[in-house]
C-alpha cells in the first residue's frame, strides 16, 4: 500500500491511478451536504452574505484545504458534553450528493483529494483533471477501523450544522483508501458499470 502524507502535491496527484490502494496520513477536514452548500453559497457564488463566524471558519479551513483533503463523513463522536472529542465511528458517506458542488469547492481551495464512497459524476471527473485532484474511495462501513486511524480531533467548526454535518478537523494516520477517479479522466466506477452491464445483458439473454 502506498503511503501519502498531506498536503499532497500536483505531481503526486498525477502519479495516482485508479485501483491503487493508498494509506493517507495528516490533517484533513470532514464536510458533507451542509458544508458544501455553505461554502458554495457564501464564498463561491456569494448568493448569501457571510454571517456569524463564517469568515473566521473560512480562514481556518483555507490553509488546510490547500493541497488538502475533504472527507465525506458523518461521524459518531464521543465527548460532546466535555469537549474532549473522540471519533467513535467514522466511515464515509455517499458522495454523489455533493456532485453539484465538489469540483467548484476543490478548485476554489486548490484541494487535492476527496474521500467518500460510491464515486462521483462527470462534473467531478472533469474537475479531477483540471484542478487536479483525485477521488479516494474509503471502505463503506469500516467505521471502527477508520475511527482508529483518526489519531486526534484538532478542532470542530459549525457544530450548529449538527454532529454529522459539522466541519471536523482531524489528524489521521494510515487511513486506508483506494483511488477510484484519477486526474487522467479514468473512473473505476464507469469501468465497472460498463463491464457489469455487459455481464447483465449476457445473463438476461441466457
Amino acid at each position, binding site marked *: 500500500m502506498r503511503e501519502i502524507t498531506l498536503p499532497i502535491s500536483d505531481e503526486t496527484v498525477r502519479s495516482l491511478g485508479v*485501483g491503487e490502494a493508498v494509506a493517507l496520513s495528516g490533517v484533513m477536514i470532514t464536510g458533507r451536504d451542509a458544508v458544501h452548500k455553505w461554502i458554495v453559497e457564501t464564498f463561491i457564488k456569494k448568493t448569501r452574505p457571510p454571517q456569524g463566524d463564517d469568515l473566521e471558519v473560512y480562514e481556518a479551513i483555507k490553509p488546510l484545504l490547500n493541497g488538502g483533503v475533504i472527507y465525506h463523513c*458523518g461521524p*459518531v463522536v464521543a465527548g460532546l458534553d466535555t469537549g474532549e472529542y473522540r471519533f467513535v465511528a467514522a466511515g464515509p458517506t455517499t458522495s454523489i450528493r455533493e456532485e453539484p458542488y465538489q469540483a467548484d469547492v476543490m478548485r476554489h481551495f486548490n484541494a487535492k483529494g476527496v474521500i467518500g464512497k460510491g464515486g462521483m459524476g462527470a462534473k467531478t471527473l472533469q474537475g479531477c483533471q483540471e484542478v487536479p485532484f483525485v477521488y479516494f474511495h474509503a471502505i463503506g462501513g469500516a467505521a471502527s477501523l477508520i*475511527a482508529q486511524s483518526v489519531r486526534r480531533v484538532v478542532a470542530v467548526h459549525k457544530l450548529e450544522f449538527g454532529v454529522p454535518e459539522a466541519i471536523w478537523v482531524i489528524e489521521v494516520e494510515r487511513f486506508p483508501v483506494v483511488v477510484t477517479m484519477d486526474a487522467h479522466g479514468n473512473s473505476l466506477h464507469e469501468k465497472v458499470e460498463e463491464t457489469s452491464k455487459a455481464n*447483465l445483458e449476457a445473463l438476461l439473454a441466457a
Partner: protein
Amino acid sequence: MNDLTEAILELIRRTSTDLPEDVEARLRAALEQEEEGSAARGALETILKNVELARENSTPICQDTGTPLFYVRYPEGMSTRALRRQIIAAVQEATRRTYLRPNAVDAITGRNSGDNTGDEHYPTIHFEEVDADQPLVIELMLKGGGCENVGAQYKLPDSRLGAGRDLEGVRKVALDAVYKAQGKGCAPGVLGIAIGGDRGSSYLASKEALLRRLDDPNPNPDLDALEKRLTEEANQLGIGPMGFGGKTTVLGTKVKGLHRLPASYFVSVSYMCWAYRRRRMTVRGDEVLYE
C-alpha cells in the same frame, strides 16, 4: 413482567458492534476468492479488520447504525405497550452510549430528534402474539441508509427486462436490481426478495426474509434453487466489494413467496449491506439468551 430495558440495551449493543458469525464466515470465504493485491481483496481485508475491532472495542461496526427494526414475538398476556416503552427507553440509552447514532430526522422540519425516537414507525416495532407458554423473542435488525436506498420494487411483467410473471422473471429483475445498486449499497450485500403481496406487504416480507441465517436452506426446493442461482449469477456481474470490481458482489440471497392479487405481481428487493447487523434475544422467565 420484568423490566427488560437493560436486556434490550444489551441486544442493541451486540447488534451494532458484533457482526453475526454466519456473515463473517461468508466474508472470510469471499476474501479467499479475490486476487492477491486487488482492490477487492483490500476492501474485504479492511472490512474484516473493522469487524474485529468493532467487536473488541464495542464500537459500532458502521457509523450508520441504520433504522432499528424490532421483530417481537410475545407470549399471550404480555403487554405490548410496556414492551414498546422499554424498547424505546433502551434505544434512547443506546444512543447516549453511542451504540447508535442519532438517526431519526423529521421529514417535514428536518430536525433530528437526537435520540432515535420519532413516530409510531421509528423505531419500527413489529409485534406478533404467540402461545402463553412460549418465550419472548426479540429480533433486531439495523438497516443502513445507503443499502436501503438501492432497494427496488418491480411490477411484472417488465418488458424492458423481458421478465414475465414467473421465477425466471423474478431472477431477471433481481439481477437488474444488483446491477443498478453497483457498489452503492456497500457491496458485498445480501438480497432479501419477496414475490407477491401488495406494495407494502411485499417490502415488509423482503426484510423479514433477511432474518434467516445465511446458511439456512429455503424449505421450498424451487426457491432454494433460485436463491443459489441468484447468488451465483449476481457474483458473475463483476461489481465486487464496494464496486471496485471482483468476484464477490453478493454474499447470499433469501426469497419469500406471498399471496398476491390476480392483477398484481410485485417483486421487492431489499439490499442489505455487508454490515448485516441482526441479533436475537430469547427471554424465558429471568433467563435471557442472546444469539
